[in-house]
C-alpha cells in the first residue's frame, strides 16, 4: 500500500502520478489524502524515480481543470482514470457513460461554470476617482482565481485593480500582477460607489414585469452569489410588484378601449 499526504498542487500530483504509472501501481494500492498518518516517503524508495510518460493532451487539459476542484477526491479519481487510460482502455475519455469519466467531466464542467460565473459576477467598486483604481471581493466555489485572472488582466489592462477572494488575492497595476494570501470582505463592503445606484436603476428598468420567470433567473444566477451582487437587493421588490404592475397595465388598456 502507498500512502499519499495532502497534495499541494497539480504539479505535485503530476510528479507522484508519473512515478506511480511508471511503476504500474494499481489505483487500488494507493491511499490518497492520508493526512499525516503515514506518508508516501516511507515507501517512496520502493519506486523508480519519476519519468515523463506520454498522455493525451485532452487528459492533461482535463486534469489541470479538475485540479481546481474543491473536492479532494479529485486526485484519486484523476489517477484512476489515468491508470485506466494507460493500461486498460486507451479511449476511455470518449466513454461518456463510464462512471469515472462521467464524474471527471462533471467536475470539469463545474470548474468551467465557476470560471464563467466569476467573469460575470465580479463587481468592482471604484476606490479613488481619476486614478482608475478598483477593488472587488468575490467568493468562487472552487480555487479558480489563477485561471480567471488572465481574463481580467486582458480586459482591464489600463486600470489598477484588486480582486480579493477567501483563499487568495491578486492585484494589477497596469504592468504586473501581484499575488497575495486570503482576502477580507470588510474593505470592499465598507466602500460606497455612486455608480451602483445607476446600475440599480438600469437593472430595475430593463426588467419586464409581464414576463416574470424567477426560477429561470435563479438557475442562471444562483442565490448564493446574490450577497456580493449590488443589484440583487432589488430582486425581492421587483418580484413582489410585478403582478401588480402587469395587472395595472392590462386594466389601463381596457379603460382606454371602452
Amino acid at each position, binding site marked *: 500500500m502507498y500512502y499519499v499526504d495532502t497534495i499541494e498542487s497539480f504539479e505535485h500530483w503530476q510528479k507522484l502520478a508519473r512515478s506511480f504509472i511508471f511503476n504500474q501501481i494499481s489505483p487500488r494500492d494507493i491511499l490518497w489524502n492520508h493526512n499525516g498518518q503515514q506518508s508516501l516517503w516511507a515507501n517512496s524508495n520502493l519506486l523508480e524515480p519519476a519519468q515523463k510518460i506520454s498522455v493525451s493532451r485532452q487528459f492533461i487539459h482535463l486534469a489541470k481543470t479538475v485540479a481546481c476542484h474543491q473536492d479532494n477526491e479529485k486526485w484519486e479519481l484523476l489517477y484512476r482514470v489515468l491508470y485506466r487510460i494507460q493500461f486498460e*482502455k486507451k479511449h476511455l475519455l*470518449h*466513454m*461518456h*457513460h463510464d*462512471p469515472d469519466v*462521467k464524474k471527471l467531466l462533471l467536475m470539469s464542467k463545474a470548474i468551467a461554470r465557476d470560471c*464563467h460565473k466569476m*467573469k*460575470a*459576477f*465580479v*463587481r*468592482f467598486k*471604484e476606490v479613488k476617482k481619476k486614478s*482608475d483604481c*478598483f477593488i472587488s471581493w468575490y467568493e468562487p466555489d472552487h480555487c479558480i482565481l489563477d485561471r480567471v485572472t488572465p481574463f481580467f488582466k*486582458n*480586459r*482591464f*489592462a*489600463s*486600470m489598477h485593480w484588486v480582486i480579493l477572494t477567501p483563499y487568495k488575492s491578486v492585484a494589477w497595476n*497596469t504592468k504586473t500582477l501581484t499575488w497575495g494570501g486570503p482576502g477580507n470582505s470588510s474593505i470592499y463592503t465598507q466602500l460606497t460607489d*455612486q*455608480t451602483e*445606484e*445607476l*446600475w440599480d*436603476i*438600469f*437593472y430595475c*428598468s*430593463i*426588467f*419586464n*414585469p*409581464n*414576463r*416574470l*420567470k*424567477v*426560477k*429561470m*433567473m435563479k*438557475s*442562471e*444566477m444562483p442565490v448564493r452569489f446574490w450577497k456580493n451582487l449590488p*443589484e440583487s437587493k432589488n*430582486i425581492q421588490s*421587483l418580484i413582489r410588484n*410585478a403582478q401588480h404592475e*402587469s395587472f395595472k*397595465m*392590462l386594466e*389601463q*388598456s*381596457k379603460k*382606454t*378601449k371602452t
Partner: protein
Amino acid sequence: MDHNRIRKKLKILADAAKYDASCASSGSNRAKKPDKNAIGDTQSMGICHSYTPDGRCISLLKILMTNYCIYDCKFCINRVSSNVQRARFTPQEVVDLTLSFYKRNYIEGLFLSSGIIRSSDYTMECLLNIVKALRTQHHFNGYIHLKVIPEASQTLIHQAGLYADRLSANIELPSKQDIKQLAPEKSITTLKSQMLGIRNDIIESKHDYKTKKKYKLPMFAPGGQSTQMIVGATQSHDRSILKTSSSMYKNYNMRRVYYSAFSPIPDAHSLLSLKKPPLIREHRLYQADWLLRFYGFDVDEIVPEDVPDLDLNLDPKTAWALNRRDLFPIDINTADKELLLRIPGIGLRSVQKILHIRKYHQLQHHDLKKLGLAYNRAKHFIKAKDHLKSSLLDHEQLKQHLSSESKQMELW
C-alpha cells in the same frame, strides 16, 4: 457625470429599450490592437453579467439614445402617439455610462438603439457619432450592438459597421400585411435592402481580411447581423413567422432571429388587444428555430400548411416525430448523424457523444441514461443493443404520455 440628471434619463431610456429581446454579446472577434489606453475586449463567447426576475440576461447596457420618435408603429411603446415620458441622452452621457458600467464589470458593452428624430439619416448619424467616440476617443474595445435606423442610408450603415460588432435591423412582423397595418411608415423593401447591404459588407470584409490580409483594417460587423420578430401582436401563424425566419437565414446570412412575445405596454394602441405575453409560444419558436439552423429541418416539416401553428404542449421535434413514426425506431448504434439528430430528446452534444462512444462500444439502453439526454422521451424512438419492452412507439397514447412528461420537465 451628473448623477441626478442621468438617473431620470436612464430610467426612461432603459425602460423604453426592454422590448428588444437580443442581449447577445457573442460571435465577435474584434482584434485587440496593442494600445496602452485601451479598455475592454470581446470574446467569441459572450458573458451574461446579471439576470433580472424575468429570467433574461443582462449582457449589454441596453438603452435608447432617445425615445422621441416620429414613427407611429402600433406595437411600440415609443410611437409618436404614445403618452410616455420622453428623454434624450447626450453623446457624452452614453459614453460615460458605458465606460463606468464596463469598468465595474457590470456589462460586456453597449446595445444602442433609438427612436427616430428629425430624419432617419440624422438619427443614424447621431448613433454613429456615439460609437465612433467610444472606439476612437476612448479606445473602447468592448462589444457594441448598434440598431440600424429604418430608411437610414447605406453609406451611414457602412460606416457604423466599422465600429459596431453587431448590427441589427428589426423586421418586427412576419408578413407584408402585418407591417402595413401596424407599422405604416416602415417599408419592407428598404428594410430588406438594408439587410442585404449589411450582408454584402460583411462578406466583403471577411473576404478582404482573409485574402488581402488587411488585418489592420477594422472588420465590418464581425458579430454579424440579427433581427427580431414580435410574436402574438397579429394573427400571423407560426408557419408564416418561421418562413420569414428561414428566408432571413438563407438570404441575409442572419446570425440570429429573435422572437419577442408581444408584451403589454403602457398606453397601448387600441388596435392591439393586450394579453399576457405568449411565452410558451415564444419558447417553441426558439426551439423550431434551432431545428432549422442546426438539425437540418425544413419549415414545411415543422409547420406544414395544414397545421400552421406549433403544438404548445410538445417540443417541435417530438411533435414532428409523432407524425413520422414510420421513420422510427432509429438504431442508435448504426444510424448516421443526420438521423440521430432527428430523435426527440437527443441534442447536438449527445449526438457527438454517441458517435464517439459507438466506435468502441455498442450502446445499450442503460448507457444512454448516463449521457445526460432526455432519455424518457428518446427511449420510445430508438433501438439499442438490448431490447426495451416499454416503448410506446406503436401506441396511440404516446402523444398524451409525452405531453404530460414535457409539462413536468419544463420551467413553466
